[in-house]
């Protein structure tokens, strides 16, 4: 029977702190990224080979792509943006692996999956959105200086004050939009795959899995690109 739940299911607790299946998946994503980085930088050489050359392909490609979007401060923004991209794409793609949302245990007649796509949990996406938006404010203050606060609290005249409050509301709405864009895309993809696999498990899920691969890549790209664009806008405010 189809088990679709909006919230991630709790599978255990540590010192009273609940562990959900998407948290477990997030730890796996972290493990994959950390092991990959360690393997790629094990014997760093000026002429790369093997895993290091693959990692350089990824990082170099990302840097060249974001150089065109993020403006002149791309080197300052790049750690945040590239990390967001790599984490989100790994989390999205790992959620498509066999075993996610299918292997679990039964409580009476209720099924609790052991693993669930990390970004299909609203908590994860809200956390990522908060990191991105607070990171943008941090870049604003560190590059423009305390003058950046004038963008939001401008006491010169009533109209500027109102515009500042509007800017503040717009920043908060960005958190909501980042979180829900990623969550909606990935969770809807999971629901779609579950329904298709429920209806016709042989061969028919293949095009939908391809669609989900593509959607996972695009959402990672859009999240990081929007962060880059907003950071660029924030620091070019004089």
């Amino acid at each position: 029977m189809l088990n679709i739940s909006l919230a991630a299911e709790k599978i255990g607790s540590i010192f009273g702190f609940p562990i959900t299946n998407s948290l477990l998946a997030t730890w796996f994503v972290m493990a994959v990224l950390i092991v990959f980085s360690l393997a790629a930088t094990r014997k760093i050489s000026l002429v790369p080979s093997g895993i290091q050359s693959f990692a350089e392909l990824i990082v170099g490609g990302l840097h060249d792509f974001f150089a065109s979007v993020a403006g002149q401060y791309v080197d300052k923004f790049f750690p945040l943006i590239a990390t967001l991209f790599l984490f989100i794409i790994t989390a999205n793609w790992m959620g498509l692996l066999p075993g996610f949302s299918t292997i679990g245990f039964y409580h009476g007649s209720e099924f609790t999956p052991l693993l669930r796509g990390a970004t299909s949990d609203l908590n994860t996406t809200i956390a990522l959105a908060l990191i991105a938006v607070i990171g943008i404010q941090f870049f604003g203050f560190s590059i423009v200086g305390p003058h950046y606060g004038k963008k939001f609290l401008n006491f010169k005249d009533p109209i500027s004050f109102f515009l500042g409050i509007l800017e503040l509301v717009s920043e908060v709405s960005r958190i909501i939009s980042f979180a829900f864009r990623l969550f909606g895309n990935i969770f809807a993809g999971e629901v779609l795959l579950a329904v298709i696999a429920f209806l016709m498990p042989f061969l028919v899920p293949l095009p939908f899995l391809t669609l989900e691969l593509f959607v996972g890549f695009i959402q990672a790209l859009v999240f990081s690109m929007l962060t880059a664009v907003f950071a660029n806008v924030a620091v070019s405010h004089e």
Partner: protein
Amino acid sequence: MDQASIKLIMTGLTVAVGGFMPALAIGLLTSKALEAIGRNPEAAGDIRTSMILGVAFAEAIAIYALVAGLIIKFV
């Protein structure tokens, strides 16, 4: 009409109606982007990037409608 039937109807209606304008927006965006690429093939990379950005914003509205529908159905 009891609550269960209203929930059922509204789930479908939310997603269907919420998808009108984003679909129109994405179509318009893409058509303008294609026109621009046709006029100026050299700027194709920049235009494509801006188009993807714009499409993501428009798509987000459709996703909000989808999430609202999901909340109606599952909560």
